[in-house]
C-alpha cells in the first residue's frame, strides 16, 4: 500500500487519528484511550496486516511522555510509526503486549527508564535496574545523585 492508501484506510478505522508524512516514514498520532482498539485493527485488518512490531521507544518530550511504536507488515512491507503520548504526572498508556508479544519486555523497559504505566500489563516490573532504584533515568529531569552505587 502507498502512504496515501494507508492514510485513507486508517482514517476510516479511527477518524480522530492524525497522520503526517515525515521525512522517512508515515507518522500516526493517536490518543491513548483510542490506541488499543486501533492497534487491534492495525494487526487484524487484512489490508494493513501490521504484524511485526520492530521497535518500541519511550521518550520524554519535556512536558509529556510518549511511546513510539515502529510497525511493519511482513506481507506487504509497509512501515508506519505510531506515537502515543501521556500526561507526565500520571502517564498511562494501554498495553499492547497481547497483540504483539515482543512488547511485553519493551514496555517493561519503558516503565523502568521513564516510569510509563502500561495499563493491563501482566507483569510490569523494572527489567534492568534494581527494584529499589529511585526515579526514572531517561527522564530529562532525573537527578543521578539520588542513587549511589
Amino acid at each position: 500500500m502507498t502512504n496515501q492508501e494507508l492514510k485513507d484506510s486508517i482514517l476510516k478505522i479511527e477518524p480522530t487519528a492524525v497522520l503526517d508524512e515525515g521525512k522517512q516514514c508515515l507518522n500516526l498520532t493517536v490518543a491513548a484511550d483510542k490506541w488499543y482498539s486501533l492497534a487491534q485493527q492495525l494487526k487484524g485488518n487484512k489490508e494493513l496486516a501490521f504484524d511485526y512490531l520492530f521497535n518500541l521507544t519511550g521518550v520524554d518530550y519535556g512536558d509529556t511522555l510518549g511511546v513510539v511504536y515502529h510497525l511493519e507488515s511482513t506481507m506487504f512491507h509497509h512501515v508506519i510509526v505510531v506515537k502515543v503520548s501521556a500526561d507526565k504526572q500520571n502517564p498511562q498508556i494501554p498495553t499492547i503486549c497481547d497483540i504483539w508479544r515482543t512488547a511485553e519486555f519493551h514496555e517493561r523497559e519503558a516503565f523502568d527508564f521513564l516510569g510509563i504505566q502500561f495499563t493491563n500489563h501482566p507483569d510490569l516490573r523494572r527489567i534492568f535496574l534494581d527494584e529499589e532504584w529511585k526515579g526514572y533515568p531517561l527522564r530529562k529531569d532525573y537527578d543521578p545523585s539520588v542513587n549511589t552505587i
Partner: protein
Amino acid sequence: MGPQHPSTHGVLRLVLSLKGEMVQKVEPHCGYIHRGMEKMTETMTYQQIIHLTDRLDYLSAHMNNAAVCLAVEKALDIEVPERVKVIRTIMDELARIASHQLWWCSFGMDLGGLTCFFYGLRDREKILDIFEETTGSRLIQSYNCPGGLMADLDPNFQKKVKDFIKYFRKILPEYDELLSGNIIMMERAKGVGVMSKEQAISFGMTGPSGRGSGFSCDVRKHHPYHAYDRVKFNEVLRTEGDTYARYMVRLDEMRESMNIIEQLIDNIPTGDVAVKMKPIIKLPEGEYYQRVESARGEFGVYIISKGEKNPYRMKFRSPNFCNLSALDTLARGQKIADLVAIGGSLDYIIPDIDR
C-alpha cells in the same frame, strides 16, 4: 540458573520453575551489565557514539557501527563513495562469518562436543587477523565512521580474504561431518524448542533464529543498504522452527556470506574512503531510523534530534533483547538440558540485551 553459568555465555540469570526436570516457566533477569548506553548517548557526539555501539553486540561490531553511520548519513543527505559501500559490505559479511563460527563452536561445546570449540576458534582467528591488519583491532573495531571509514584497506586485504574463503570452503564440510550429522546432536536438537512463524513474528524474533521458523526478516533483502542491492544471495529460510533449523540456517548463512564476498572482492572501486565531515556533526531536527542485519538479527537505531550536536533521545533496537523474550515460550515443557540447547541456538550476547 546463572548469573554465572557456562551455557549463558555471559551474566544472565534465569529463574526456572520446575516440575522434576521439566521446565514450567523461565523468567530472565537482565541488567547485570547494564551500562545505561542510551542515557550516555545523550551527552555524546555522533562520532563518540560509534565507540559505544561496538560494545553492544561485540561480535557484530561492524554492523552496529554501520547502523549509526547510515542513520547520520541519511539525516545529512550524504552519499558515501562506492568504495566505502563495498568495503562495508565485505566487512559486514566477514564479521557475520566470524560470529557464526564462534556461535558454532560454543553451541557444540554447550552440547558437550569440545572439539568444535577448537575448530571454530582456529578458523575465526584468520578473520580476526584480517580485521587487525586493516582496522588495528580484532574484536571491537570502530572501523565505520559517519561519512565513510576510519582508514583505507591494508594492501594484503584482498589476497588474505581470498585465501580465507578458499580455505574455509574446504573446512566448512568438516563442520557438518563433526556436528550436523552427529546422532547425539540431532537427538538433542530436532523437535526441541519449536516456534511457529506467527509466534516468531509476534516476538520480533529476527535473524537466523527467526528465519529458522520461516520468518522472512532479512533486512539486507527487504530494505537494502550498503551494496546489498547489487549482489546475488539467498535468504536462508527453514520451516521447522526447532533448534536444529536455527542451527542449519547459521551454517548455510556462512556459505551465503562467502558468496557475497566473492562477488565483491575482485572489484572494489577505487577512490576515497571517507567524505569530509565537520568535527562536530549536528543533525537537523527530526527523527531518523536505520535498520541493519547484524549476525543475530535486526539491529535498529532510532534517533530523535533537536538540531544539537548530541541526540535528544537515542534508542537501540537490539535483536537479542527480542529473541530473549521468546525464551520462555520456547523452553516450556522441555527439560533443563534442552534449555541449554535452546539458549545456545538463540545465540544471545548479553551486553546487547542489557545495553
